[in-house]
């Protein structure tokens, strides 16, 4: 019972990591226990790939490459951003079911509830991106650079989505229930993902929208992912650096914001 008095700060960090791992494990088991949800939430982005590749793709012309190559980095980013909604839904559900109440009375690290939730959602995003890469290959997508740069691009967009997860944890902790958490999340995500360079070049949009679309973080992350995955005409060191800056900046702001919101949640 008095172990806390003996352990130093290294012990504290070990406990914190162990708590994050435990909560992540619990959330991942949750995914596996509802295979239907896992299946359909993976099918959803795959349908998007097929839809844009075969239905809209023929009407969209981009410079310097086949549309499917242009499309895949964009659709990766769109998918992982929507994956962040799972964070808000999951937390709202834990709150609703009283699980957070139990966690609060346990001697676990305060940050572990959010850390475990966002980490589990990150793992799921990794899985979904892997599946989509496979589907992309089947419909003609080819990496323009090399495998290592492709993986760096994937890592970048996964980190971006991870930072968004922390932001959406605030939505989840503020929503009265999980259904509301979901509908509260979409209005934030739609403008960010669709008014972006994910599906069509920003230059095809009206002038007033371009100003927003060209500079918002989702576009920059998409441009950076294209730079790393396609290279050539899409290579842009500036987009890569700006996207990286957004990731670091968002993490620096959204992680403390999530923790603050969690502490305030009664």
């Amino acid at each position: 019972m008095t172990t806390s008095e003996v352990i130093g700060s290294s012990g504290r960090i070990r406990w914190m990591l162990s708590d994050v791992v435990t909560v992540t494990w619990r959330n991942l088991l949750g995914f596996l226990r509802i295979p239907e949800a896992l299946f359909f939430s993976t099918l959803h982005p795959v349908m998007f790939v097929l839809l844009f590749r075969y239905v809209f793709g023929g009407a969209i012309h981009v410079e310097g490459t086949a549309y499917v190559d242009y499309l895949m980095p964009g659709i990766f980013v769109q998918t992982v951003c929507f994956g962040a909604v799972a964070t808000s839904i999951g937390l709202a559900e834990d709150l609703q079911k009283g699980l957070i109440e139990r966690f609060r009375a346990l001697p676990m690290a305060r940050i572990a509830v959010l850390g475990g939730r966002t980490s589990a959602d990150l793992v799921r995003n990794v899985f979904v991106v892997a599946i989509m890469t496979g589907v992309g290959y089947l419909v003609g997508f080819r990496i323009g650079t090399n495998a290592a740069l492709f993986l760096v691009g994937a890592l970048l967009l996964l980190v971006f989505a991870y930072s968004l997860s922390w932001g959406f944890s605030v939505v989840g902790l503020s929503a009265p229930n999980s259904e509301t958490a979901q509908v509260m999340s979409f209005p934030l995500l739609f403008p960010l993902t669709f008014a972006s360079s994910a599906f069509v070049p920003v230059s095809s949009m009206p002038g007033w929208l371009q100003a927003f679309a060209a500079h918002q973080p989702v576009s920059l992350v998409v441009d950076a992912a294209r730079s790393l995955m396609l290279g050539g005409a899409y290579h842009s060191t500036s987009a890569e650096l700006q996207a990286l800056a957004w990731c670091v900046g968002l993490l620096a702001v959204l992680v403390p914001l999530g923790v603050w919101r969690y502490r305030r949640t009664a």
Partner: protein
Amino acid sequence: MSEAPAIEANELVKVFDKGKVRALSGVSISVERGSVLGLLGPNGAGKTTVVRILSTVLAPDSGWASILGHDVVKEASKVRQLIGLAGQYATVDENLTGRENLVMVGRLTHLNRATVRSRADELLESFELTDAASRPLKTYSGGMRRRLDLAAALVGRPPVMFLDEPTTGLDPQSRQDLWSIIEGLVKVGTTVLLTTQYLEEADRLADRVVVVDHGRVIAEGTPGELKADLGTTVVEVTFGDSSIADDASTLLQGLSTRPILHEGAALELTVEDGPRVAIEVLRTLDAAGIAVGGLALREPSLDDVFLTLTGHKSDDSATTAAAAAKGAVVG
């Protein structure tokens, strides 16, 4: 180090909704180590709010509380190592199996893997959940969930346990079983604070009882002391109408140990010796030529405690009690 009480609360105040709901207006309690305190009160009295503050889930607006000498706000993380909480509504993970739920709580209590595994097996065994251990909680009945929730609170073998209405929703057999488990905890020296709406439960388990109503302590003592205050039996007599009941009330005044409660066409007398007084009641009324519609004897209920202590019935139960009384006199 002097021996601090296991649980101490001093003038706890908590308001919700920006002051609109005053859940607690100055609750003080003290629970000796190794004893059981029953926190008794009607719906909305503030029982859960007390438990949530003592278990560090909620901070009080004013007042302080400590567990084994550690402040629940300033030393919250220390307190969390000393307590187990089984909340009013089972807080278990629906997607995990029974064993996984226990393992999760054990890991978050920072027990090593081997200990977690053996404690989980032990608890599943003693709560008769071994057969269901590998099934997701979704497939559990309400009573099984409740038992697993309690088991989860015990994984860390905390010296202080909070049980918020542990037997609500359990069938009589499960309730008996749970009572035995709680008695077992007390035998090994655990301090228990349990909330309940049942006098019978407090009577069986608690060394001391604190009665709360509208966020205040309105009585405390041993169950025996409280019951001695109450008389032992309630005699209910019903008549054709309220005016007859009026007349009868005057006649029967001397038989009740406290003022007769008059509700509609029914009277309630609090007495020491139920059967003797019942005969006396019938004799007196017969001699006066007053017809009796029905007569019933019952043990004093929590409602009677409130009646005695506050002069009003608990808000929610007044209607149900009246309905029950009506049912009892038919025929």
